[in-house]
């Protein structure tokens, strides 16, 4: 049975405040859209609780996130830069108009060279999180998957990021029941 060895639940949308409590210097954080900030912070907490150095290359780790609104929160910001009469498309915003950019940000920060995937679902589903994370274990040498629900839309932050490991002795069993409990 695979185990959840660490997890972080984030519902507070004061993301910059949380960033400051981490006492890290990662200027890229301030360029990110809100979805990326939320996913980044929750992942940071998970790796920190596991006592891991972000600089160590990780070839044994995959990353699978899921949400409902894709990158719509940022898409609406980008849309305001292409209005007729006020047309100044912003590349800095456009780059975040893809749901999976958050997986890229976390992979860069933590040097994750495994699979990164993003799925969309109508609502939180422990069952779908398990199915998609299990799939990522098919990758060669993948021993653990950082997975979870990363939803951010219109100031509502709803994030659960978990580290799921194949051969861990300690941790919560990776079951629907346990996931629903920590969500």
């Amino acid at each position, binding site marked *: 049975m695979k185990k959840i060895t660490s997890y972080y639940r984030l519902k507070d949308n004061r993301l910059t405040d949380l960033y400051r409590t981490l006492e890290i210097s990662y200027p890229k954080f301030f360029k990110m859209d809100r979805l990326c900030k939320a996913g980044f912070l929750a992942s940071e907490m998970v790796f920190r609780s596991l006592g891991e150095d972000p600089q160590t*290359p990780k*070839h044994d780790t995959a*990353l699978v996130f899921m949400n*409902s*609104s*894709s990158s*719509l929160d940022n*898409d*609406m910001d*980008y*849309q305001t830069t*292409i209005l007729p009469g006020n*047309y100044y*498309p*912003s*590349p800095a915003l*456009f*780059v975040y*108009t*893809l*749901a*999976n*950019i958050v*997986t*890229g*940000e976390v*992979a*860069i920060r*933590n*040097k*994750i*060279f*495994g*699979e*990164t*995937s*993003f*799925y*969309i*679902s*109508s609502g939180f589903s422990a069952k*779908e999180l398990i*199915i*998609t994370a*299990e*799939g990522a274990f*098919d*990758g*060669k040498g993948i021993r653990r998957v950082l997975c979870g629900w990363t939803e951010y839309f219109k100031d509502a932050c709803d994030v659960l990021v978990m580290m799921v490991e194949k051969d861990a002795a300690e941790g919560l069993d990776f079951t629907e029941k346990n996931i629903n409990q920590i969500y």
Partner: protein
Amino acid sequence: MIRLLGDCIVSPLGFSSRENFNAVKSGQSSIREEDGAVSRIDRSLLSRCFNSTGAISGDYTPLEQAMICAAFHAVKQSGIDASSPRTIFIISTTKGNVELLGETVHPYGPQRIYLWHTARLVSDFFNNPNKPFVVSNACISGSCAQITAKRLMERRLYDYAVVVGGDMLSEFIVSGFQSFQSLSPVRCRPFDAGRKGLNLGEAGAAMVYGRHEENDHMPGLYLTAGAIRNDANHISGPSRTGEGLYLALEEVLEQTGRDSLAFINAHGTATLYNDQMEAVSLSRSGLLAIPVNSLKAYLGHTLGAAGVVESILSLMALNEGIVLPSLGYEIHGVTENINVITQCIPTTGNRFLKMLSGFGGCNAVLLFEKKV
């Protein structure tokens, strides 16, 4: 390993895989330089094609029409029961109906902007009882959706999977790529020294896959292996060392070996950095001798559909024993000596690699094979 049972491409080059394949084979391109060097599907032809499914096109956005149309014909060809609980729909799209964000009034309702809603409309069309999976992994989505199909069926969760990819061009998407200065004003030239960027294209495409029993030696076309790897380098630019793509190639080749490779269908977007990165990855993997093509100059970069469209066209080439020429390549324009093919050539190989890379630093490699 999963077996291909049916497929369909809806694009400006035609409304079936065969029409598209014949057009590509004869060197046609749907990229209109006078229209900003993009490839667009004629909306009235699309709704006419859609109406042939028996539904009313006015109820569906152009993207939904293209996806449903493609799925309808692929399902028909496969003969599977798309309404069975043993069949799953897997939808691949990057931006879905994003153009609705720019329309204050539209008849489709507020939920229409969500990708899962688009997916539901597609699976509901076929009265499928399962909640569809939606993959949104930037430009590699179409390959990820096929890998998802393989994983679900290898775990025996389903017997059939209908993979549907699609994206349409809106002001939202075109303006963004423009702001990135990655669009070519002329038809794109993958791997050429004079390449100036990519062309965007519209398409809907579908593949129906069936579960494969071990020890079953049924002739046909198969998705044998797939891998996804991240560069961990940059969110909007490929790694200079091609790290993620190289790792994905190595992972697939380690499983399948390097024999009998007929060709490599590259991503080949014709941006300076993408093509160079792919060449570096191929060199690192020792694949310089294998024929390489890019199909982007025929249909443009079709985003969430690209992995599906290009897999289908390449499978048809494999099935015919040919390698499709890479349109737009004249003067070698990458540092590595990759073997770009410019004429249609015969091949005796029975397998090919499909590569894709995308924003977020993600890379996917698929290996397909023909069994006789």
